[in-house]
């Protein structure tokens, strides 16, 4: 069986795959020097996942027209405050948006 790797744009693929590889560490990097940041990353990742799920669900309900004026206002303010708080916490722990994810091995990435 002759192995073949064929593409007319090797550079483009190398660059794109490197980009994906660079964003996600394979393991949580926790050691005595950075244990606080490691834990914060884990916790903020889970909060970010829940925040995104809430936002997506809210958008679906807005789209379907099942929310009243008051409910939209309340959800809007809640999501806005949640996002502000997340920005603040990311700033405190020096975390970037793209760092808030986890590789789940064969299951793929969390987000």
């Amino acid at each position, binding site marked *: 069986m002759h192995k073949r790797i064929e*593409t007319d744009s090797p550079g483009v693929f190398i660059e794109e795959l490197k980009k*994906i590889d660079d964003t996600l560490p394979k393991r949580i990097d926790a050691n005595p020097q950075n244990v606080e940041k490691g834990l914060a990353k884990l916790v903020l990742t889970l909060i970010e996942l829940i925040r995104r799920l809430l936002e997506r669900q809210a958008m679906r309900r807005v789209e379907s027209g099942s929310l009243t004026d008051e409910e939209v206002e309340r959800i809007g303010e809640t999501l*806005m405050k949640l996002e502000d708080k997340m920005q603040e916490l990311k700033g405190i722990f020096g975390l970037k948006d793209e760092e808030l994810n986890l590789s789940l091995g064969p299951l793929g990435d969390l987000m």
Partner: protein
Amino acid sequence: MRVYLYAIIDSNDKIRKAIKGLEKASVYNIPYRDIGLIVSKLNGQVQDISIDRAIEHEGVVETLMEDFTLLPVRFLTLFDKEEDLLSVIKGYYSDFIENLDRLRNKIEFGIKVIWPGNTIRERIMNNYPKDDYPASISGDSPGKDFIKARFKRYKITKGFEDEAERCIAVIDNLFSLSVTEKRLERLKSENLLLNAYYLVEKERQDDFRRSFEQLKSSFNDFKYLFSGPWPPYNFIIPKVI
């Protein structure tokens, strides 16, 4: 002497080919019931853990793939002695048999597709109708303004994902007749539209390659990468992780 494991094969016979493994050690088969554990001896740890060593490991697996159905084992899997390896294998025997039966005479191919994601998202954004919001978010207030902005982003992302799904369906459909199983990873990044793994019967690999030739002329501004045949890395289903 420690034992380095490369793969599990569907035969308990001696290997006829002379294969050299890590540290140039001879590769041999340890029979267990009707399957075999492909190993070589190793003195202590693997020296110089590097891409070259990983390629040596992969080389052994690929040579075996020519003659056997196999389950490739992760790089750097070491046991202190043969008895340790056998005691581990005993517990997973039925799992291995199930996988070997399912993967018999099958090989894996990979297809990666890059599309101009940024351009497509921009086009969807430009075509998004201004002030097209549901009645419940009309009017101005901080909460509603926030929801308006998020709703627009939601609709654009949805449009982007729908467009991606449409293209993936066309691509995947080209291969559907020549594959037995598949694993599709969609939009791993804005531009990496599809990272697909296909399990193909050995005798159908020419059909699969022909489908790839067809694919190349389907979307002119997409870029494609074809690789294989590989051992079925992505199609082994472990019962216990």
